[in-house]
């Protein structure tokens, strides 16, 4: 554009013309980003600020704004004595285990699928299937598979001689692992596809050189594949943990947080508090805690990445 020619001049002695042009250009910029900016503002930023303010109030969204009562830090004080919330938060942290486990499985499968099987495309589709199916449909299928008395899973277990097979989703100790199992299975497809893309990006000459040097497959994996995939791993870890913290749909359709809150997570508890018990203010304070935790974990990961991620 012409501006690039006039810019050095105007930098020293700004003329009226170039100033005007600059303003127009900036204006155009804002004009084009405007709709997006407005969308972010109205649907993300304002609700966030509003929710932040609500977390210090006692309010129910069905009553008017005139019923908002400022309550300071009461909500937060109450939260840390709220057994259901603490249990949900604890469950969230246990559930985080599903992320690295799922990624490890995806990585191994990714390596196998790229180089050791026929028709890798078919396998990609198979593993991606649960991701594109509706969570509700998937949950119902697993509900039946996990049927405590007549389900195929327990049928198999009793056939091989297990006396008292666990009741899975109806058992307070096994419900959470069952949900995690499903989570891993559903999210496997995404991690797998991204890992396969990452593996394909590794230059083949590295492997050739390693083979000539006589490195075993395991050594190649340890010294070439894994280090060069660390950016991918980092990306999957961050998004996986954030997504894991926000898990709701699966819990809602599979167990409703039960039995006895053993699968309740923060977002589920928040939903229950906000839309069933109608305590919007209290639920907002839960969101704030969640926000702080997710922010802290992500921040830690960013700080930690330079010690293990190779770009």
């Amino acid at each position, binding site marked *: 554009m012409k501006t690039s020619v006039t810019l050095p001049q105007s930098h020293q002695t700004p003329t009226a013309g170039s100033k005007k042009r600059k303003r127009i250009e*900036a204006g155009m910029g804002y004009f084009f980003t405007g709709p997006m900016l407005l969308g972010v503002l109205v649907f993300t930023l304002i609700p966030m600020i509003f929710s932040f303010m609500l977390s210090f109030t006692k309010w129910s*969204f069905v009553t008017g704004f*005139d*019923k908002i009562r400022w309550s300071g830090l009461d909500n937060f004080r109450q939260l840390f004595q709220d057994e259901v919330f603490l249990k949900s938060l604890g469950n969230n942290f246990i559930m985080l285990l599903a992320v690295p486990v799922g990624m490890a499985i995806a990585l191994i499968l990714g390596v196998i699928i790229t180089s050791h099987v026929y028709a890798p495309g078919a396998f990609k589709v198979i593993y991606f299937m649960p991701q594109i199916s509706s969570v509700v449909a998937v949950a119902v299928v697993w*509900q039946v598979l996990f*049927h405590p008395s007549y389900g195929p899973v327990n049928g198999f277990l009793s056939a091989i001689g297990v006396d008292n097979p666990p009741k899975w989703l109806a058992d307070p100790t096994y419900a959470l692992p069952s949900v995690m199992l499903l989570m891993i299975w559903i999210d496997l497809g995404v991690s797998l596809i991204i890992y396969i893309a990452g593996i394909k990006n590794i230059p083949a000459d590295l492997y050739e050189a390693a083979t000539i040097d006589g490195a075993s497959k395991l050594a190649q994996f340890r010294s070439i594949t894994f280090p060069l995939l660390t950016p991918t791993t980092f990306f999957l870890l961050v998004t996986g943990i954030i997504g894991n913290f926000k898990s709701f749909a699966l819990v809602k359709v599979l167990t*409703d947080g*039960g039995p*006895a809150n053993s699968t309740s997570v923060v977002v589920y508890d928040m939903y229950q508090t906000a839309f069933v018990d109608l305590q919007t203010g209290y639920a907002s304070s839960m969101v704030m805690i969640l926000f702080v935790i997710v922010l802290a974990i992500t921040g830690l990961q960013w700080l930690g990445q330079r010690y293990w991620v190779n770009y």
Partner: protein
Amino acid sequence: MKKNVFALVWIIVLLVALAGCGNSNNTNGASPTSGSTAAPEAGESAAPSAEPVTIKVANWSPAADMEPILQAYEDSHPGITLEYVELADNGDSVAGMKKLDLLVASGENLDVVFMPGATDYSQRAGLGLLAPLNDLISKEGITLTDEYTVDPSVDGKVYALPDTLENYFVLLNKDKLDAAGLAVPTEWSWDDYLDYAAKLTSGTGPSKTFGTYFHTWAMYWELAVINQEKDNNLVNNGVVNIDSAGIRQSLELRSKAEASGVAVPYADTISQKLAYRSEFFTGHAAMIVTGNWMIGEAGGSEEFPATFTTAFAPMPSNSAGQPAGVSIANGNYVGILEKSGHQQEAYDFIRWYSTEGEQMQNVYSAWKKQDVDKFIAGVKSGAMSPDKIDEASLAYVIKNAKPAPLSVPPTYQGELETAFTKETELYILKQQDLETTIKKAQAELQKIVDANK
């Protein structure tokens, strides 16, 4: 320079946003007060001059069911227009309540709202959504307890009129009863109930018929409490009722039924999210404790056609010798929103609806002057397969029902029930024994009561 402009724009945007928040706060804060001061005047000046008034009525029932009744009211009351707001498209009251809350939150000008059950009613009364009706009632000069079987007072104030009446009894699969050679019970206790359940249990594997099925609702954990005349809730007058003989008996009843395999296992119930209608109407369970919204469905519905005769038995008593058929009374409630500008007109309408209007719809109502025989005849004429309803036992159950005066539950009833069922679940799944359950539930409910003082 460029950075400065950008920052400036951002600051302006944020300021506008904040100002916007502030503004909306102000206008919203101001409108209800101005509305409530201006509205009654408008209502009073409107009434004498008989200006047309539109009342918005919100219910979760399908419009096709409600419209004829509303039409009848409009015909007999010129100048009143009723606008029906359908809250759910499948008659689901739980979804209906969510929609109602959203509508109210978004400032929709509803006047008359229906609520399914005392818990929903007292929750919304406690939030200050509903207008107190005491003045309007005393202006009309009626005594509520003479008119209705249910007393809807919350802390001495009436926020809604009782609409339908709901009390509890037992539905039995009469074909299975006959096959087992058992008579339809008229006086019985929970021990007899377990006995019946044992005799009705047959078969094995997925096609096993269980004697009974208990749903996940809190009432199924307090069966020996809700059949009492007094103190029949989890918390009565601020006193937590868990550490009591009634709750102990209720939990033991559940545990006995579970252990002897005569009830559908609780693990199946929660992991498969079983529904009581399908369990009963497919013959998977031979008896269920349920309420009178199921009377009409005993004659079959689209989803569950009646394939066997359904008999009715009163609510069992706690021990032989005590009268059977006592049960807490619940039901739908109809109230007027605090923000409504037509309190008097809306009140006239809900009075009419909760009495005469209901007769048109042929529901079991809380109105004392309802004709029971006419109601049963109406149910049968409306049923898909009327011969599948055992009329003799139904008449006996309705005529001998002893609805205990309802004490409207505290506004935090929902929280109490959640906390209570959490502990009872651990008990039935054998994670803790009876005394631990009672002790923990008592403590937790006490905590909720204290937090809401």
